């Protein structure tokens, strides 16, 4: 039976997950809480925290805030200032290979290499999202009317991908073959990078704000509907002409967060009312992980082995769900 251990946090949980064996919770009030052998708290930002991403090596959590600062925090409670843009709200960050990070405010994105060198990338319209490619120092920036692919380490010409509308959250498929964006409208857009073929994924009643790739990138799980919507990305054509899986369907609540299991074809589905379910792809078997609470699930993240799930809500609720006793 899954067990839920509540964790006391001070506000809207912006991001939760694991650094190796240690759970982390970063809140909009600026608190970063690590729960491993004991509990460590740190508060590097002067005021609010807007975004958090675990470093690719799993050793630190990179956060940005409305103080214009970007910090790297360790599970021991230590932190280091990585970059600063005074008076800017830095609300987008991505972590890349070799300690590189990308961050953005307004129309400008920056990459800070592991060695501290910085590079600026200007766009005509606001940056909507950032993602590093799974291989190489390649940065994808979603923007109005499409996305731009930059080589972050060199001065090569960027690749422009066009599709009308405002593109926000962005991610590469784990094999690097596809680039997917969540749009201002209730839709996802995708590009097959080999030939920039467009892919439309529509039919959502709400904006897609959470997405997660399943093991080996077979499916892309998404929020934005009263069920988790999973688009198939195996086969030559990806999701085109295919129907998505609909898991954990409910009649009374929208899905607000999704997180695919790191090893099994299973997804954790978080709802507007705070409920969390775990759903299996092949037979839609469901296991209740958390009963409804006070607010929408805002974030979820599995540990490496897929036995614990750290979650948070919009109203200062958080916890760690263990699948094993």
């Amino acid at each position, binding site marked *: 039976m899954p067990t839920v251990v509540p964790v006391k946090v001070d506000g809207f949980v*912006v991001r939760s997950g694991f650094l190796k064996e240690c759970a982390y919770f970063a809140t909009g009030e600026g608190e970063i809480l690590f729960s491993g052998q004991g509990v460590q708290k740190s508060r590097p930002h002067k005021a*609010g925290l*807007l975004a958090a991403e675990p470093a690719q090596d799993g050793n630190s959590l990179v956060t940005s805030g409305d103080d214009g600062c970007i910090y790297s925090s360790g599970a021991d409670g230590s932190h280091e200032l990585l970059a600063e843009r005074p008076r800017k709200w830095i609300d987008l960050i991505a972590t890349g290979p070799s300690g590189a990070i990308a961050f953005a405010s307004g129309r400008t994105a920056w990459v800070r290499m592991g060695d501290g060198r910085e590079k600026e990338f200007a766009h005509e319209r606001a940056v909507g999202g950032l993602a590093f490619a799974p291989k190489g120092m390649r940065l994808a920036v979603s923007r109005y009317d499409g996305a731009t692919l930059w080589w972050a380490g060199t001065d090569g010409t960027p690749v422009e991908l066009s599709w009308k509308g405002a593109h926000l959250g962005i991610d590469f498929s784990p094999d690097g073959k596809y680039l997917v964006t969540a749009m201002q409208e209730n839709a996802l857009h995708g590009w097959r990078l080999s030939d920039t073929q467009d892919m439309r994924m529509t039919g959502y009643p709400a904006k897609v704000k959470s997405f997660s790739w399943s093991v080996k990138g077979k499916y892309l799980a998404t929020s934005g509907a009263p069920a988790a919507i999973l688009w198939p990305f195996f086969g030559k054509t990806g999701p085109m002409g295919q129907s998505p899986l609909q898991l954990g369907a409910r009649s009374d609540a929208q899905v607000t967060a999704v997180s695919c299991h790191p090893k099994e074809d299973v997804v954790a589905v978080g709802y507007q009312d705070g409920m969390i379910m775990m759903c299996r792809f092949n037979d839609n078997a469901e296991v209740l992980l958390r009963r409804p609470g006070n607010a929408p699930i805002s974030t979820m993240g599995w540990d490496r082995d897929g036995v614990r799930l750290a979650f948070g809500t919009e109203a200062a609720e958080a916890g760690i769900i263990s699948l094993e006793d």
Partner: protein
Amino acid sequence: MSATQDVQTQIPVTVLTGYLGAGKTTLLNRILTENHGQRYAVIVNEFGEIGIDNDLLVESDEEIFEMNNGCICCTVRGDLIRTVQNLMKRKGAFDAIIVETTGVADPAPVAQTFFMDDDVRASAKLDAVVAVVDARHVLQRLEDTEEAEDQVAFADVILINKTDLVTPDELANVEARIRAINPYAVLHHSERCEIEIAKVLDRGAFDLDRILSLDPHFLEHGHHAHECSPDCDHDHDHDHDHHDHGHGHHHHEEDPHSVKSISLTAGELNPDMFFPWINQVTQVQGPNILRMKGIMAFKGDSQRYVIQGVHMIVEGDHQRDWKEDEARESRLVFIGRDLNWDVLRDSFQACAAQ
């Protein structure tokens, strides 16, 4: 029409418009420094002369998003959606939001953001659009630019600032011209934006009842106030026959494209007639409609139904029970350009319950 939002959790938003130099920054500085017991998150287009370092003061570059729905006037402020979402991560840190627009901005995308984006709607609610105008320069601005006229037309509250720089006659002219564009806004006068903050912020429900409390004859008179001598303002009830033909006056205005307003009244309405009608009107004439607001009495409905709109967007909801001593009247006002008033009036009246 729209899903009922939880009013309790929606943060009130005040949109501040006005031309460069009108006094927006002065007003913002006052709001940020005065001890009024409210905590405001302020979204400005540039820090400029706001000398206050406040972690809830954010600069935001205007990003207009067109919606892919085929509607040319359905635009929202993408940067605002993002900033409001970011603010919601610190919900307990402030009580209300103020959005300052650039001097030349069209106020429509800002207002529409609060109706069109579901996430923003769930967390924030447009409280009022406040326009600051400079008493000395506003008449010239209104001559020169459509934006200045749009800002006045859009406003729920208008602050006529720098009144110490004009004569009483000049001020009366300014007021008459503003009333001619927008008779429904609440007008205040100020010098150096010295005004009680509560008069411009947290107005609640758009001061909607004002459209009911205003005498409709006064409203019609207001349209051509600038053609009359200022003293005709005080005596407007004397000649009802004259005012019954009031709508005809619109056709004699010098500039047929300038902003005008119309007030439509009826008794109880048939909702099955009214909703298709209002949807059709806003679909067809949306680009010309700047603001629309109304209070409806539907036959067999014990509650007042309030409606408001910007261009093609219409939003309505039940407000409260009709009081026993209240006349069950419907009143709908439009502020816009190139609208066919006679057709609107006749088709509105055709929605009356039989």
